[in-house]
């Protein structure tokens, strides 16, 4: 899929061809539909859909958003219509577009993850699965797995057996050692990693003394998270040999280039989509110009450049 917009920008990860390395991250682009009025979905490198669960899920009560310095707290809490409706309405619709789709899968138990991932895989309509084991907004499921490499690996192995699509596991930087986590998840059969999810955080309205979010805590995204994401990618890229999709606070082509130089094979734009629906495409273009200016034949040459000593 994905005819390259410029040969220099084309990348391939897990056998999937992207016209450019700029994806849109889960939960920040709806399921594509909301943004299809704003840009040609075929112009982004890939779409990672919003978390889908076995049953419809109402999500957390509002308020669900709070803006913090250079960041956003959200506690959406996996609101989605359940895997059946997702397949019939959203994924089928997305398939009209010439763009690779990662489906972000969440659950409240092992069995749910396995069931949903299996259904996605069987549908034949997705290019890859992204296992969301790091959502900070649900009591069970989310951070439970991502706080223990053993649990994360166990779930990865179970899901891997149920699918025949590339399986990406999405990690959180809220962990003692993200390297260990990544290594265990790779050993358990992950085909790729998504780094990083929002970071658990909180804000209080001092006038009332109450939490800003009805759910009390939420996930921090946006530029505030970016330097944490760069380090996560840098650390993990040294210990795994599966592809990494880097994300966290990408606000310009420089941020995307940083993640790639740190070791990401592709990059996902998240919160910025809310400000500029065309951001992923625009950043891809800018990244192409940068690569051209530096004399790179392919943006892939940026991947891991820092480890190789930088631009010489």
């Amino acid at each position, binding site marked *: 899929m994905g005819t390259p917009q410029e040969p220099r920008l084309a990348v391939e990860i897990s056998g999937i061809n992207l016209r450019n390395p700029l994806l849109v991250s889960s939960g920040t682009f709806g399921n594509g539909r*909301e943004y299809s009025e704003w840009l040609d979905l075929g112009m982004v490198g890939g779409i990672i859909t919003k978390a889908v669960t076995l049953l419809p899920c109402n999500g957390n009560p509002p*308020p669900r958003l709070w803006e*913090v310095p250079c960041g956003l707290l959200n506690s*959406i809490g996996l609101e989605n219509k359940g895997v059946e409706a997702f397949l019939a309405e959203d994924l089928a619709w997305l398939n009209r577009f010439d763009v690779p789709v990662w489906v972000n899968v969440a659950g409240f138990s092992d069995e749910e993850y396995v069931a949903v991932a299996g259904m996605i895989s069987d549908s034949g309509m997705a290019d890859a699965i992204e296992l969301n084991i790091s959502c900070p907004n649900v009591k069970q499921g989310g951070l439970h797995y991502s706080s223990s490499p053993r649990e994360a690996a166990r779930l990865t192995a179970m899901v891997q057996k149920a699918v025949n699509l590339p399986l990406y596991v999405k990690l959180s930087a809220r962990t003692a050692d993200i390297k260990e986590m990544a290594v265990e998840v790779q050993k358990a059969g992950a085909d790729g990693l998504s780094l990083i999810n929002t970071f658990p955080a909180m804000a209080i309205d001092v006038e009332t003394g109450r939490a800003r979010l009805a759910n009390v805590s939420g996930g921090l995204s946006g530029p505030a998270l970016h330097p944490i994401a760069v380090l996560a990618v840098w650390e993990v890229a040294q210990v795994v040999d599966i592809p990494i999709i880097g994300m966290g606070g990408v606000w310009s082509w420089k941020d995307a280039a940083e993640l790639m130089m740190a070791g990401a094979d592709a990059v996902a734009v998240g919160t910025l989509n809310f400000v500029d629906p065309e951001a992923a495409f625009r950043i891809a273009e800018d990244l192409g110009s940068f690569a051209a200016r530096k004399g790179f034949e392919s943006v892939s040459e940026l991947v891991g450049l820092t480890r190789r000593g930088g631009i010489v």
Partner: protein
Amino acid sequence: MNLGSKFSAPIIEKSVYGCLTRVVFGVDQAYLAEPGQFLHVLCGSEDGRILRRPYSLFDTASGTASILVKEAGPGSAWLARREVGEEIDCMGPLGRPFSFSIFDRPALIAGGAGIAPLIFLYKNMCSEGMEPSLFWGIERSGDYGDMPESILAEFQVRIASEDGRVGFKGTALELFTSQQPEDFSAIYACGPRGMLIELTEIMIGDRRARLQLSFEERMACGVGACKGCVVPASDPAGSYLTVCKDGPVFEGKELDWARLKSRVWQ
């Protein structure tokens, strides 16, 4: 309903009415928007704010679109202080507008800065030959500069002020209920959440169906993608509707008023 777009528009006019600043953007001649829809504006940031800010459209006319900005915090303060000539990054028009039938006898009830979409609606209704009644409640007479006077001159409007120095002494709702509310076959309101909730408490049962209320919630995307700006839907499953896409205008019966009341708005 009009599809929104992202565009950069120059400010071509600015006027201040007390706490409200009318900002007029120069837009495409073909620009169309309906009352109740909003613009999602990127406000400059000196303090690390990253999100856009939603503003109801106040009017659109050949090649212009305007909003009324009330300073509520840093984003709106930034916007209110822009000068004529500056280019502003906007997305819109967004959201579900008010809808009306020319056979209705409508009451339009505005609380404070909630006047913006209702004047727009009022004008559209008038140009369809309707005779809407507009009720506007303000806190103190001076708060909105000479806007009350100029609106009074132009429109069929009744003003209520809490200090009683212009029009009726009391709130917009008190004024409205003093006016045979049952005479109106459709009611349109925009204002503080408390006012909207009170209104639904007056309009119970079937009468809720006649209500169209414009809601506010903190927004991120403004286009229905993030599910951040939700209000509780009246469906028994406890689901939510997005203010930005399913709203900002809702019919009274679409929302779960009991849950809405318990929402902690900050």
